[in-house]
Each structure stands twice: as structure tokens, then as C-alpha cells.
């Protein structure tokens, strides 16, 4: 499945207040011993997530690399260096471009598939299985398959273009096509997630709404525009937010298909973090880049959720 956790999905749907309020109903009398149930998880959460998160924020302000050791706090210098780094700026641009390419595709194609396949027919179930199936594969297999598809001269793409008499291109080594080629792989890989979310939403629409519309002689198009889409508006926003968050984390596909090239035109932010932190061992610098990514993701998601809510209200 996609390298990132689908659990991010839920941040878009349920507000914190909503979720905690419904937590109010425990049974029995309050006892501290009950906290033992959550203790193992809370310990793991603390050690494996909360402490690293704090440490990461701290690291972002330190001059700390594996080779030179810790050279004290440097304030915003890491961030300043990132700003001045041409390659980093490039990765930010690439990542944003990638998000802009994939998110609309996920929303539109995912919705279209869901609308087309939302019935009980066997053949629809089969098609759903096909579109969803690729998302259970790991990034390594997906990129392996697609590198074979993109292979110059002998790849599937070259074969197809050859039969229709076109010159084969090698998207992997093209500055123009490298990032779009990765976007295509990504959409192919995990279109099943948005499709499934939309299908779930479509099934929540009460059937009597459609019956009422049919009695009102609404055309298929009108039914879609005035019943179906308004009913799943919330899900459209959720899917868009989820996809932005997921696609900001582009990494494996780029590393394994293009390696970030050619000439850095497909290098994403996460790859930059990976290389700064684990190849160059500049921990402070890499941590700062992580915080920039985290912040950008939060801003993008919040902005989108906000826009979605405004439209709704």
C-alpha cells in the first residue's frame, strides 16, 4: 500500500471536539487502574512519536551532523541555508507541481470511477477490484513494473508508440516528462483510495432521494448535479485534503524511477530530506527541511479544508 498512512484520512473528517465528546461514555466507576489499558500504547507513542517530534523540532535549530557532531544552537541558520539552497527550492517546486498534477486527477478520476461503478453488478465489482488492486502493491514493485513500461525501445510504452508509428520517448531521462511520468505511476498506483472513499460516500446517500428525483422527472445529469454531488461535497473536500497530504510525501516513486533527475527536475522534498539526513548526515539541516515539509502540508491541508468549509457554509 502507499508508503504513507491512510489514517491521515481521518483528520479531514472528524473534528477533535466531536471525537472527544463521544469519548465521554465509559462504563463503571473511574479507576486509575483502567489507565493500564492505554499505558502500553501511550508509552510507544511517547517514545516513538512524541519525543522524536520534539527532538526533530529542536534539531532543526542546531548545527548537528553525524560527522562533525553537535556544534550548538544556530537559530534559524538551517532554515536560512534551505532558503538559499537552489536544489531545495527546486524540490519544493517539484513537490508542489506534483501535488497540483495528482490531486485533481485523484479527485476527478476517483469520483468518475466511483460514479460509474456504484452498483451491485458483478462486472462493476470486477472493475472496482482492478482499479483498487494496484494499491496493495509496494512502491518497489510498482516502480519496477513502470520502469519496465518506460524502458526505452523495449518498454511497453515504446512498443505501443512504435505500433502507431510514433517515436519512442524516454520519460525517465526527459526534463519535461520525468515528473509527469511519476505522476502517472502514482495515479495508477493508488486511485483505489479516492475511489473507495467516494464509493462509501455515495452509498450513504438515501435511495429515497433518488426516488423522489425520479418522480420529479429529473434527468440523469440533473440528478448528478443537484443530488449526488451536493450530498458528497464533504467527501470531495476530505479526499482533496487527504491527497494533498499524501502526495506531499512523494518519495519512493521518484527515488526509484528517476532518482530525482534528470538535472533535479523530479527530485521531491522527501528525497532531499532523505539525502541530507541519511546520505550527507546533516541532521540539523535535514530536520529543518522536515519541519518545512510538515508546515507546508499543514498549511495546504488547512487551507483546503477551510475553503471547503466556506463553500459549504
Amino acid at each position, binding site marked *: *500500500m502507499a508508503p504513507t498512512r491512510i489514517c491521515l484520512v481521518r483528520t479531514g473528517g472528524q473534528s477533535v471536539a466531536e471525537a472527544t465528546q463521544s469519548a465521554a461514555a465509559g462504563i463503571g466507576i473511574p479507576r486509575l487502574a483502567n489507565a493500564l*489499558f492505554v499505558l502500553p500504547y501511550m508509552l510507544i507513542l511517547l517514545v516513538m512519536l512524541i519525543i522524536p517530534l520534539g527532538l526533530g523540532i529542536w534539531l532543526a535549530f542546531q548545527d548537528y551532523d553525524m560527522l562533525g557532531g553537535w556544534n550548538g544552537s544556530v537559530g534559524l541558520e538551517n532554515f536560512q541555508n534551505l532558503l538559499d539552497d537552489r536544489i531545495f527550492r527546486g524540490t519544493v517546486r517539484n513537490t508542489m507541481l506534483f501535488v497540483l498534477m495528482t490531486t485533481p486527477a485523484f479527485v476527478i478520476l476517483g469520483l468518475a470511477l466511483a460514479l460509474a461503478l456504484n452498483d451491485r453488478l458483478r462486472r462493476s465489482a470486477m472493475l472496482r477490484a482492478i482499479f*483498487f488492486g494496484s494499491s496493495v502493491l509496494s512502491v518497489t514493485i510498482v516502480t519496477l513494473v513502470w520502469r519496465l513500461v518506460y*524502458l526505452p525501445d523495449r518498454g511497453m510504452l515504446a512498443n505501443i508508440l512504435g505500433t502507431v508509428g510514433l517515436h519512442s520517448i524516454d520519460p525517465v531521462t526527459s526534463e519535461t516528462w520525468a515528473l509527469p511520468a511519476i505522476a502517472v505511476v502514482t495515479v495508477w498506483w493508488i486511485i483505489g483510495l479516492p475511489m473507495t472513499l467516494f464509493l462509501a460516500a455515495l452509498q450513504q446517500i438515501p435511495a429515497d432521494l*433518488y426516488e423522489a428525483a425520479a418522480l420529479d422527472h429529473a434527468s440523469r445529469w440533473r440528478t448528478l448535479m443537484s443530488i449526488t454531488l451536493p450530498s458528497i461535497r464533504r467527501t470531495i473536500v476530505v479526499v482533496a485534503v487527504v491527497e494533498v497530504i499524501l502526495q506531499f510525501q512523494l518519495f519512493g516513486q521518484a527515488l526509484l524511477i528517476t532518482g530525482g533527475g534528470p538535472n533535479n527536475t523530479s527530485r521531491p522534498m522527501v528525497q532531499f530530506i532523505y539525502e541530507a539526513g541519511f546520505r550527507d548526515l546533516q541532521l540539523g539541516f535535514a530536520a529543518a527541511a*522536515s519541519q518545512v515539509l510538515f508546515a507546508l502540508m499543514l498549511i495546504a491541508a488547512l487551507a483546503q479544508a477551510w475553503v471547503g468549509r466556506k463553500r459549504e457554509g
Partner: protein
Amino acid sequence: MQTYRRGSSFTDRALFIAVALLAIIWIAPIIWVVGLSFKPNEVLMRTTGGIAAPPFTLKNYTDILASSSVFGWMLNSAIVAIGQTVLTLVIASLAGYGFARTNFLGRNALFVIVLAALAVPEQAIIVPLHTMFAMFDLHNTYVALIVPRVAFPFGVLLMTQYFRAISPEIEEAALLDRASRFKIFWRIVLPLSVPAQVTLGIYTFLHAWNDYFWPLVSATRPEMYTLTIGLASMQTNFAQTEGIGFLMAQAVFAGLPVLILYLFFQRYIVSAVAGGGSK
């Protein structure tokens, strides 16, 4: 599922044909790769056209079986995925029950923290996490590959939600039947939560099996590679390779376990995805 059919059968048919065509495009790469994986490398050196034309061979697969590392990686993946699944099920069920059904001081505050942890992407913590494991010299161990992933809150929230849906009266009846809190959890609540356990288990297993970034930085010794990392390590030097048939066979071989899992548990996998998103 919505059964109400509207519109003409002509539009329906056209729509279906369009979607079916798209589906064919969708599985074409996989069929192509599977097909070519049965062809000799010498033929593939010259042409990759005509996947249905002989000659065929199983040599690419026997080569995989002969190469020792792939099996080691698969074993590692199995250990990591099963370990992570079991640990997640145990810990998420306990915590989910604690949050859903018990009262203790500070419960709501802790729950808010868990919810907030949803927003943290792995990239934000991977550098310091790696440093921490390095400090304790824990890299290239199963512990390192398993434990950090248990911290992600999805499982806890899924189980919390599921336990909340179980009637509290049932547990109260058990309280009156003199069952301890742990016994209620073990004898009443857990048996009732099997569907959620299956969903979470498969979801966790798939994620662990396919995990990429953390194993990439934590497992650096080839004998500790998972299948995902091991396969990736063999993908370098790609264009010059002479054995694309071998590569294709590897892709098929590595993808097979999850695809089989998918075929058997499709309903649960899809519901894990939908359940995570629609609530």
C-alpha cells in the same frame, strides 16, 4: 449499494465500455510484466513484442529460487509484518478499549493527544527517530523494523470507534456477573471485535509488508533487508540490465503474496480504507 438505475441502457452501455477500456489500460502493465516474466532473457534482449508468442520458460523463476537473498528478505518481511500486526492488534485493542469504555483521570486529555498524533507524518520524525535508534545501536534489528510503526494512531482510533459501537449494557451485565475489567475485555469485547481485528490486522500487515522509508534507513545490512528494500536495491543499474525477464519475475514473485491476500480479503481491505476515510 445504490441499486436505483436511471437513464437509458444505451448510456449505461457506453459508460461501461469506457470504464472497461480504462480498466484494461490499468491492468495492461501487470499483464505485460507477468507475460514477459515467462520469456527467456535472450529473446527479451531483442524484442519485447508479442507476449503471447513462444518460446516460454520458467528459468526466470527458478533463478529467483536459486538466488539466496530473496528468500531471506521474504522471511524478514514476514517476520516484520507478522510481528507488527500482532503487536499492533494487542496494543491497539487494549488502548482502544481503554479509551472507548473505561473511565480514568486524564483519559480525554490523552485521547486528544492521540488524535493530534494523526497529523504527524513520518517524515517529520524520521531523522530524530533514526538518531535515537542509532544511539541505542538498534538498527538492523527486527525491533527497529517493528516497533516504531506501532506508534501510529490509526489502529487505536479504529478500535476505539469499534468498541464504542458495542452496547455498553453488555459490558455492564458482565460487571454485574463479577467479571474483572480485563476479563470483560478478554471474554466479551475481544470476541465481539473480530471483524475489526481482521480489518486492522490486514491493514497493518499490508503496510508493514510494503513499508519503504523507515526500513530503507534502518535496515542497512543486506541480510536485514525486507523484500521491498531488497528488491529496490537490485533495481539500480537498470537500463543496462540484460535480465529484464528476471526483473519481471521478481516483481511478480514479490507481488504475489499481497495480491493473493487481496483476493481473499478484498472486502476487509477495502473496508479498512473506507472506514478510515468516511468517519
